[in-house]
């Protein structure tokens, strides 16, 4: 077919706190707000994406953790109740999502041809991970677009950050090729946070923002350095520093999402747009957009 393209890439972190703070009808717990800097960041991201014509959203999910290869949701429809096993007090969300199985299969096949171990998940009773649901809700609250959901292979922990980067780079390139061949316009999203050291206690009122801050100055410095590379258009430099960042900031980039995203975008040298930064129980989170449609040729 051909003619498809990646129209935008996003770093779209998935703390369930952001959904909890918003009080959507799908989520059972209710709140008095909180984490506004990040939620305003998502407001700006949504406004930006609303101006970009796209057919599908492709997500790589650090909370669908697989140890035996990379997996793809492989049925057209999933629905159910998602309860966060770590923050069940904040996130009990009734979801109903559409999956672009054709594109998922195409990425699966392209990745398999590249030598990666990949699997389609076709058990209809499978419960979609809460992180996928959080990011999907925050970027598209109407659930208007079909999704492709890719698991996070734990190669960083089996081998090393370097091996993880190699595998996720290949998966990213395969994703890009499959999107281009599909004729579809895709927004690609990595769902990870940045520095990832949590507080281990929670205020009585979880949304009490007087308790919210980064866990340490070192984590803050790392987050700012990485964001600076993003907005400076230095994706290759970001990838080069990924091993140190991942280890020293205990970063959620260990799931491979950001590496995958950079390669799905073709390792961009144009600046990203920072829509927001904030902390969630001490972890660093940035909402960032790479407006690929502005910087790349229209059709490959």
């Amino acid at each position, binding site marked *: 077919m051909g003619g498809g393209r990646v129209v935008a890439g996003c770093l779209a972190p998935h703390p369930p706190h952001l959904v909890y703070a918003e009080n959507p009808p799908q989520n059972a717990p209710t709140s008095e707000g909180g984490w506004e800097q990040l939620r305003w960041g998502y407001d700006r991201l949504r406004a930006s994406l609303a101006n970009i014509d796209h057919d599908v959203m492709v997500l790589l999910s650090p909370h669908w953790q697989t140890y035996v290869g990379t997996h793809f949701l492989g049925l057209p429809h999933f629905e159910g109740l998602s*309860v966060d096993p770590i923050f069940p007090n904040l996130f009990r969300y009734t979801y109903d999502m559409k999956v672009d199985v054709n594109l998922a299969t195409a990425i699966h096949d392209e990745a398999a041809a590249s030598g990666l171990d990949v699997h389609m998940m076709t058990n209809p009773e499978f*419960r979609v991970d809460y992180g996928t649901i959080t990011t999907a809700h925050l970027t598209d609250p109407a659930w208007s677009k079909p999704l492709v959901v890719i698991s996070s*292979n734990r190669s960083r922990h089996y081998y090393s950050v370097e091996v993880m980067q190699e595998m996720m780079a290949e998966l990213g390139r395969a994703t890009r090729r499959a999107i281009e061949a599909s004729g579809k316009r895709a927004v690609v999203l990595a769902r990870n946070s940045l520095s990832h050291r949590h507080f281990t206690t929670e205020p009585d009122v979880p949304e009490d923002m007087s308790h919210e801050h980064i866990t340490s100055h070192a984590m803050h410095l790392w987050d700012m350095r990485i964001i600076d590379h993003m907005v400076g258009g230095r994706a290759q430099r970001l990838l080069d520093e990924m091993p140190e960042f991942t280890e020293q900031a205990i970063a959620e980039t260990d799931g491979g999402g950001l590496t995958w995203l950079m390669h799905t975008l073709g390792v961009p040298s144009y600046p990203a747009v920072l829509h927001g930064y904030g902390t969630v129980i001490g972890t660093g989170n940035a909402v960032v957009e790479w407006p690929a449609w502005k910087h790349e040729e229209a059709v490959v």
Partner: protein
Amino acid sequence: MARVEARGGGGLSEVVATLVVPVHPHPLLAPDTNEGYARLRVAFEEAAKRIEESGADLLVVYSTTWPSIIGHQMQADPNPVWNLVDHDFHDLGTMHYDFRIDAEFAHAWKLAAEKRGLSARTVAYEGFPIDVGSVVALSLLNPGNRIPAAIVSSNVYANRAETTVLAKACMDAAKGRKIAVVAAMSLSNRMFTQRIDPKEDRIHSLKDDEWNRKILEFLADGRLEDVAQLSRTIHTQIRVQKVVAFKPMWFLSAMNEHRNDLTGEVLAYEALHGAGGAVVHLDPASNGKGDKEYDEENVEVFGGDRGVLDAVEEHAAHPESTPRQDGGPALWEPVEGQGAVNSDAAPKPVGAYPHARRVGDMLYLSGVGPRQPGTNAIPGGPIHDVAGAPLEYDIRAQTRAVVANVERVLAEAGGSLNDIVDVTTFLVDMERDFAGYNEVWAETLGKVGPTRTTLAIRSLPTPIAVEMKVIAHLKQ
């Protein structure tokens, strides 16, 4: 046998069986696809039979596939029902569960954990995703929900002290019940990173296999505490980092009072997609080989980094004080100033004052108790627990420790016990303790001959029974 008197009364809690079981779904969903999976299934069934024969009336599962961040989570839905599909092995099918959870016990455990300084909460939500390790364990070890069950998460940040305290809180809450405690865990947890034919399954590497067999050799000898002490080494050697640490042995050992003389039997050891899976039964009967030394701090109350949020403010208000792990008053750096005498060998003050102050030839000591410098342990034991429940203690040991601390402060000033001219002693229970205190006095300060006044008071700032106020005349 691990029999522990519950804090706050309620009778002896008793661990009557200890089990280690694997977490992967193959023995539950696909036992016929590999002879090893079938042997694990048979071992699960044998373990279930032994639990029943043990007379257990409470089944406690510590699951490594339920990670938590905010403290420790206890399942408290009395009847969780769901269909679980494994994230990796979704092609094996669906695990339907319908469990009977002892919600009352879960709440009691949470409260007991909080009393011991832990952050804890119960979870009771429709559709809560009970983890695969717990589902496999409860499905195969407790068919028909014969025994009320409890499930606790594995906190990703918890160290040994915290995990030990969690186990002690479990025993507090159990109050007279007979517990079968289960660790749902892999041994080596490195799986093949590609799909394999189940018939070709084997332990991922020879190194992993050798470590697994060494661990199982120890467990077969009943040496649970030895495996617990090797936990960090095992984690480094055969565990995939950041997946789950090798913590469950800390929990199991603490539940068994850190014993090394249990009666162990390995019921099965097989590969599960490359990971090491074993079913092990540890009976509390002594194997007669003698117990070994428990050489780590036997912590009763946890402080650690729990309370990070609140501690920041408290610490900022009093930068010279350090919050106590046992919930007691904060410890302070001794105040410096003209004539101040402070000793690193003496316990830290519980307020802003020096250990002693010299005025000319006279040395005036602040009140001295028996706490040990560095650890704050109380020789002879504290007089009550963190919840205020009275404990047995030894007044003689406490009094000797007070005299030793007095001697340390005097030595810092260049003096000795022989320089003491006057002592005022405070006892919290004159009737119970005067004789023992007097006996130690006669052996020590009585030989020096200072004047003495002994008073009964209601309480002291820390859980001690005796404190002395000392005045000395230092020789030039």
